[in-house]
């Protein structure tokens, strides 16, 4: 899954062209069309319900991006990523609620953007802390140490201590109007949608850029063969921690973004199941693929929504379906992962690549 197919008669004449993101006019056109749909089409067509579904997709993309970076590109299996989302969300919330912002900052709507950045950095550092065992342990053992991140962070530190700050009890509520970027108060699904789009595009672009430069190559090298990576001059421990930092950073942004969608945050928003869910997203989308992260997120969120829509009309005759929907959702999640592991271990991204190839090579099959 590497290079772009060039149409007959079109050749690259410089390395610059070969390094470009969008290499042909056709692809550029396609991407512009995609942007138009994202920024204009969807907000115009969709009602507020589907916009909120899109926001859910965006949140999942942001969360899964860090997991993808760690598992798919650096080979460090993680099962506690929700912890870093939580750290991001709580850092941002606490900064907004408790930090003595000068009036000037609040008027300009800088508090929230700054808190997002701060949340990202704090989550990144927190993630590095739990990435330290990766210097010594690999694979299954690392799964356990990253799970520790989840339990230590969410179930212990946040529930027991952070939640007590300000004496609010379990949940921190965010008064309307506190989430403000510049002149815009983020108070509707549509505004959250636009903010989500900007963040997703920025972070996906950053990760893709990293992957085609020095740091990202080192990550992939560590994933493929850590001994020869070290022999080729990569400080393996340092680069693993870089990966944990960037993954935590993205997780922090995701968490800080998501508070705009929540009236109140509590530890229950970041259960261990959500960490597992994010791993499921990249398994279904395709491990080691940015496309996979996005497709996986869309698939998981949209399938669950469709499931819900299917259950509602049945609920009148089988009320238990609605009552136990949470369990149905989890069962569907497990089933989807089993099915993908058996029938398409390379995930949706591979199917996408196959489909693209089919059209690129048409009318030939090879």
């Amino acid at each position: 899954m590497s290079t772009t197919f060039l149409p007959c008669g079109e050749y690259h004449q410089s390395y610059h062209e070969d390094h470009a993101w969008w290499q042909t006019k056709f692809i550029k056109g396609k991407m512009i069309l995609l942007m138009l749909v994202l920024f204009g089409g969807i907000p115009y067509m969709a009602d507020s319900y589907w916009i909120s579904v899109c926001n859910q997709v965006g949140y999942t993309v942001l969360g899964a991006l860090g997991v993808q970076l760690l598992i798919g590109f650096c080979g460090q299996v993680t099962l506690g990523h929700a912890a870093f989302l939580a750290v991001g969300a709580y850092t941002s919330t606490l900064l907004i609620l408790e930090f003595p912002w000068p009036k000037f900052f609040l008027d300009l709507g800088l508090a929230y953007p700054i808190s997002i950045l701060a949340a990202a950095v704090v989550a990144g550092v927190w993630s590095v802390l739990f990435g330290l065992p990766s210097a010594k342990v690999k694979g299954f053992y690392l799964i356990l140490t990253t799970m520790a991140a989840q339990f230590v962070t969410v179930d212990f530190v946040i529930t027991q201590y952070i939640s007590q700050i300000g004496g609010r009890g379990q949940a921190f509520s965010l008064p309307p109007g506190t989430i403000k970027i510049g002149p815009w108060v983020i108070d509707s699904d549509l505004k959250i949608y636009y903010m989500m789009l900007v963040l997703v595009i920025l972070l996906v672009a950053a990760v893709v850029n990293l992957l085609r430069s020095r740091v990202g190559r080192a990550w992939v090298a560590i994933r493929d063969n850590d001994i020869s990576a070290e022999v080729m001059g990569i400080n393996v421990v340092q680069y693993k921690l870089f990966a944990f930092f960037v993954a935590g950073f993205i997780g922090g942004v995701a968490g800080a973004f998501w508070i705009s969608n929540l009236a109140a945050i509590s530890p229950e928003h970041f259960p261990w199941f959500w960490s597992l869910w994010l791993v499921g997203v990249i398994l279904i989308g395709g491990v080691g693929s940015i496309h996979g992260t996005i497709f996986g997120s869309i698939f998981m969120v949209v399938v669950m929504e469709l499931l819900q829509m299917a259950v509602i009309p049945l609920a009148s005759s089988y009320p238990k379906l609605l009552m136990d929907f949470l369990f149905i959702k989890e069962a569907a999640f497990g089933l989807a992962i089993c099915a993908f592991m058996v029938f398409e271990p390379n995930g949706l991204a591979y199917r996408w690549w196959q489909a693209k190839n089919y059209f690129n090579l048409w009318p030939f099959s090879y």
Partner: protein
Amino acid sequence: MGGTTAIKADDVLLDLKDIHMYFGKVAALSGVSLQVRKGDIHSVIGPNGAGKTVMMNIINGLYRPQKGEIRFKGQLINNIRPYQRASLGMARTFQKVEVFGGMTVLDNIRLGRHIHFKSGILSGAIYAGRVAREEIEHRRFIEEEIIDLLEIEHIRHKPVGMLPYGLQKRVELGRALALEPELLILDEPLAGLNLEETEDMARFVIDVNEDKRWKVTCLLVEHDMGVVMDLSHQVFVLNFGNMIMNGTPQEVQNNPQVIKAYLGEEDMYATRR
């Protein structure tokens, strides 16, 4: 000629002095000394289990010997990590290919230049200006110096894991060369190659060693005696952790002890040709 002490101190690139390496009670190397002269192809031969690969792992830092000194360019490197040795100018290939299977050929070779790239997390994420220029500069080097030399133009965008073994070996050599090393450790570069691939690989080793552009000192571990005797300036013979001798290929071939321990009957390596 040929003895371990005959080399001028300035010319010594790599100097192993009295290396002892134990795994538990097993002595993998007992008191091995080796001097590699700048510009040479220095071969290490010996029967299976003689400790050749252990020796290579010690040289590039994957193992640390319990006793002995390793000097590279005059500097004591006993306590230097493998990745730091890479930036000192040491590169290696492995006996069983250890390429990055999921990366393309080009990315594998780019990774070999890791120590020459400068970008970090932030600049890499933005990928503008200097970083983009740097990528193109290195791409030019890789295309013109390495891919052209090793004749792997046709596979440059293929994932290495999907390539046949012979090409993987070639990519691994390319990756090591991309580091622009002063010392290139080749651990059985010819193992598992067919006759034509063997000839190609031997030619690449000579190219890299003799070409004015490269002038890389090679430390070669190999079982193909025909190639070893043709290519090497010096041959070092190892037998179960002990050095038997070090000398020119001619001297080694005529040494009764070497013949007894390793080379065996006269016609053994004649049939390999």
